[in-house]
């Protein structure tokens, strides 16, 4: 989407409160509606990029999603939202407000076919092939964030973490299950933990073996609708865990 490439050089719309008053004026300032639409689009891109990260910043995602909701609510009250929706899908729009569900889905879950309900402009992109879209949006990201070097640094730093992220995701799954289990089983899991955590190598090995046990235990009871996908992921996860141990131990 070339809009954001252009956006680098153009100053973002600020002082939007003033816009309606000064519109008649001297230079071509975009209308409030256009500004608002641009903010909505920017926010949706940000949210979509969150999904690319295996470990998104939850606070930031929640704030952006709330912003999107506010815009959509205002647009619904305006009647603008209905207009946009009838053009693209021909349906009434009042219940198409953004679901925060999208916040907590990783790109992997997207690929497994869980549908994200939501907003008109991005509907097709989401339902489409996630893998294909990611390379396009990645290049959009880097061009959007180029003038702020620290942003691209943060992006680069994320990549080595990706493997760690899968590992963490396995832990996440374990904890989802553990919350529902009785206290006894939690203690059982923790009783295996080696308390002599003075040596980093021991600690890492200890964590890894717990994870391997816990992961398989978790899968047996984890009420996942996509069981087959989870089972096939178990093996690849264990391979990735081994891989991660190598990386962590080497570093």
């Amino acid at each position, binding site marked *: 989407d070339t809009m954001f490439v252009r956006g680098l050089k153009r100053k973002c719309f600020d002082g939007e409160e003033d816009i309606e008053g000064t519109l008649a004026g001297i230079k071509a300032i975009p209308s409030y509606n256009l500004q608002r639409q641009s903010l909505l689009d920017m926010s949706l891109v940000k949210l979509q990029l969150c999904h690319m990260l295996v470990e998104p910043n939850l606070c930031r995602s929640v704030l952006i999603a709330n*912003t999107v909701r506010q815009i959509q609510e205002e647009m619904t009250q305006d009647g603008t939202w209905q207009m946009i929706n009838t053009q693209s899908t021909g349906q009434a729009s009042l219940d198409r407000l953004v679901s925060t569900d999208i916040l907590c889905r990783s790109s992997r879950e997207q690929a497994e076919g869980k549908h994200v309900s939501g907003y008109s402009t991005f509907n097709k992109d989401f339902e489409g092939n996630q893998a294909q879209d990611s390379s396009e949006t990645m290049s959009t990201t880097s061009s959007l964030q180029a003038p702020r070097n620290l942003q691209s640094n943060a992006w680069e730093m994320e990549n080595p973490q990706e493997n760690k992220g899968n590992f963490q995701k396995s832990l996440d799954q374990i904890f989802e299950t553990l919350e529902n289990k009785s206290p006894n089983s939690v203690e059982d899991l923790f009783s295996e933990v080696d308390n002599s955590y003075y040596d980093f190598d021991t600690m890492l090995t200890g964590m890894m073996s717990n994870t391997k046990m816990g992961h398989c235990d978790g899968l047996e009871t984890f009420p996942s609708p996509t069981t087959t996908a989870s089972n096939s992921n178990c093996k690849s996860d264990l391979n990735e865990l081994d891989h991660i141990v190598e990386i962590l131990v080497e570093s």
Partner: protein
Amino acid sequence: VFSPKDKTIKLWKITERDKRPEGYNLKDEEGKLKDLSTVTSLQVPVLKPMDLMVEVTPRRIFANGHTYHVNSISVNSDCETYMSADDLRINLWHLAITDRSFNIVDIKPANMEDLTEVITASEFHPHHCNLFVYSSSKGSLRLCDMRASALCDKHSKLYEEPEDPSNRSFFSEIISSVSDVKFSHSGRYMLTRDYLTVKVWDLNMETKPVETYQVHDYLRSKLCSLYENDCIFDKFECAWNGSDSVIMTGAYNNFFRMFDRNTKRDVTLEASRESSKPRAILKPRRVCVGGKRRKDDISVDSLDFTKKILHTAWHPTENIIAIAATNNLYIFQDKVNSEMH
């Protein structure tokens, strides 16, 4: 010293070493074993001075307690327990027990689709070991009493300032998100930092803060750009001085700000190598927002948003402050005779 690395909490011991033993019987100066046939007499190793060395060793690792990123840790006044907070939960730990913790706050909704608010910071009360506060991304503070119930989902007090309708924008909620909360040393007040202000709250007044200070109000008209480049999500810390009379927080361009609660004076200072040599007194800085521009003023448009001072700390009793600016740590102290620096 605690360091939460994402989701694992580690307790480190910091030791200083400025002496080392010399004259071992079995090892030579380089640590190699001596040939025992050359050892003819016994000697007692002697401690000799050496260059100061600071060592950090991990003493406890509190793992597997959090599903989300840890945003704050607070040691209790009982010196036995501490709490750690992530986006949705707060856990209570005992310093000596690493394999279990108690969950004391859980705001995760049954359906994650309903999630609209997360925990951003938390702290124990400095004197009452049963009280703690946590802040949220919607700008509210909740004071909780652990004596009331095991799971502190119901707050004892809720501190919230109503929104100013004249300043409303799509960014209102984001800039109201509290990035840090700190109790005063007296325990009577709380200090909060949101994107544009620092606020002092009286524990007895839930409806609004008693004091509000503008950190960089000139950014209010730039919120859209700051949202675009993600700076609007930066989390700044705040700090009290030992007597609770001055509060401090960081900003952009390596600037940090101090507000004197009594005189109502404030100052902007810069932490950078270019602007200060060791032992030199810091010169107050000013950001000009149009109108008259003095020499050495910085205009808003030339502020460097990559130079952010997120972490600041004030010594609990002395007037010594620590400022973290990108890769550098600055320690400043006040000159004995002068007024507030």
